């Protein structure tokens, strides 16, 4: 399946990738922020990710491949062993539940917050609030922990529209700058979670490719800690 005995062509690192590794990444911000980390650990894509239409990218190591998939699919690929490891947001992980995954490292990238947002005069204590969100599980758990029964309305995008057109009372969404909220007359009301990207590893891969994976995780950890 994979050629064995990869030739090291990189001088930055001592890492030897004797075992084939597949790393799942999502296009966009996570990919951009992950590349420098991988580079510091000695992994660089050969193809230009911005122009290629390939879904599997070769790297400078014969044994290491990158697969580019949708952010919400990363935990699924890694859980079932289609990829050995991946990078995904804590928001996605909370929705997925994390079954079958290890989350050994907070990569401290793609940082933002998960917030309850709405009109400035919204009543957070009202009964049976309607919450529009992509993050059904996180929203339900958050309000349940406060002892509030709410109705969750699952949406796939443009959450800000929901309170304006009267579809919901509040929204739960990721907030980075707050500009979209502001432009639509909404404000953040309640902080729920700090979000950042996590390294996730397939359980079986962690056991079977332990030497390589733990070395890679430690390498990345030291890169992250250096800032």
């Amino acid at each position, binding site marked *: 399946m994979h050629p064995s005995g990869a030739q090291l062509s990189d001088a930055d690192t001592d890492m030897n990738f004797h075992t084939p590794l597949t790393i799942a990444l999502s296009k966009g911000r996570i990919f951009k922020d992950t590349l420098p980390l991988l580079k510091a650990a000695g992994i660089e894509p050969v193809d230009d990710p911005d122009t290629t239409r390939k879904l599997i990218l070769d790297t400078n190591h014969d044994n290491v491949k990158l697969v580019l998939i949708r952010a919400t699919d990363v935990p699924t690929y890694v859980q079932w062993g289609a990829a050995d490891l991946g990078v995904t947001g804590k928001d996605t992980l909370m929705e997925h539940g994390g079954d079958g995954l*290890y989350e050994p490292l907070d990569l401290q990238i793609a940082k933002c917050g998960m917030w309850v947002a709405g009109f400035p005069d919204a009543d957070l204590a009202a009964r049976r609030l309607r919450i529009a969100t992509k993050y059904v599980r996180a929203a339900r758990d958050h309000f349940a922990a406060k002892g509030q029964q709410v109705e969750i309305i699952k949406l796939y995008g443009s959450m800000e529209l929901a309170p304006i057109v009267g579809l919901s009372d509040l929204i739960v969404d990721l907030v980075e700058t707050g500009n979209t909220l502001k432009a639509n007359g909404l404000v953040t009301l309640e902080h729920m979670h700090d979000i950042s990207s996590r390294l996730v590893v397939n359980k*079986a891969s962690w056991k079977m490719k332990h030497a390589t994976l733990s070395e890679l995780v430690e390498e990345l950890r030291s890169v992250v800690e250096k800032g």
Partner: protein
Amino acid sequence: MHNERWLLPEGIDELLPEQARALEHLRRRLLDHYASWGYELVITPFIEYLESLLTGTGKDLDLQTFKLTDQLSGRQLGIRADITPQVARIDAHHLRRDEPTRLCYIGTVLRTRSDGFAASRSPLQIGAELYGHAGIESDLEILSLMLETLNTAGVEDIYLDLGHVGIFRGLARQAGLDADQEAALFEALQRKAQPEIDALIGEFSVTDECAAMLSALAGLNGDDEVINKARIALANADDDVLAAIDYVAALGAALTQTLPGVPLHYDLAELRAYHYQTGVVFAAFVPGLGNEVARGGRYDHIGEVFGRARPATGFSADLKTLMRVARPEPLAVPESIFAPWADNDPGLLQRIRELRRAGRVVVRELPGQAGDAASMACSHQLQLVNGEWQVSAL
């Protein structure tokens, strides 16, 4: 509307002749194999009172169990989601032997939620349990039998994973965690989510010593170096924890000696089936599959609620998963003999009886049927030669 009455519920499957033949072949080989080790087969009920099904097994199994109300007694019934507790009851309540008892079983279990690859909710659970001996020797026997099961099924490139639930239990007790705190930490440990583990421990009011040990746990996995690391990182743990580390180390060393070719991975934070396991836990992994293909461990207290606590160790696997990941030797399809239809021919009937008694497969033609011997996948046929029915190749 399309006719979708053939559609099965999610995670429920059926086996067609070719798969069913292979599975049945494997089932017989395995049960014969267990019998040759002295394991007696038991057949447990598919459905029984919920309270006896779930006693002492924890919340996970409760959520996994399909339930219904018994119209005769008004009590709740459950469909078994795991056979191990049922077998433990047989040992504790019915057999009541003092000698070591070896039992094996096979049966379909139903689960409300799938927990394995390909999302099966109706695994065909096969396993063996050994009661009445506490110590690495009985764990080693069960582990050997588990590996032989995988080999017999044709599963290759097996990795063994070894852990001990007593380590986390002991540390949680030493730190004085309450049930909620222990559950929260357990959940984060299952995912080795080090940032969350450290955040949780920071919220607990535990001594620095305990905090450091709990935090180190998620990192204690890898090759046999881990044992030494654990002895250093958990040096201040109480005697139960140190004894658990010694137990894992001794079992690992014994395994390496008895089964040298099998790669061994230690994971001291592995808490598989934590709610009824009490000691060492183990699992077998194969490349390319996210979940374990077989698992087991020690569960010394499960019989207590049925009147008798006996040391117990065992393993189980899903036969259908094994079939999917295995590369078995191809099964020879038995040759079939086609017997043409003939009215009132005692000679033909006699010949068919003889052939079948001799173990041959004879398929009878039916009057007016479609197809012939070749299209019925027969390799031979019966022909009347000089007044005698003879087998000839097609």
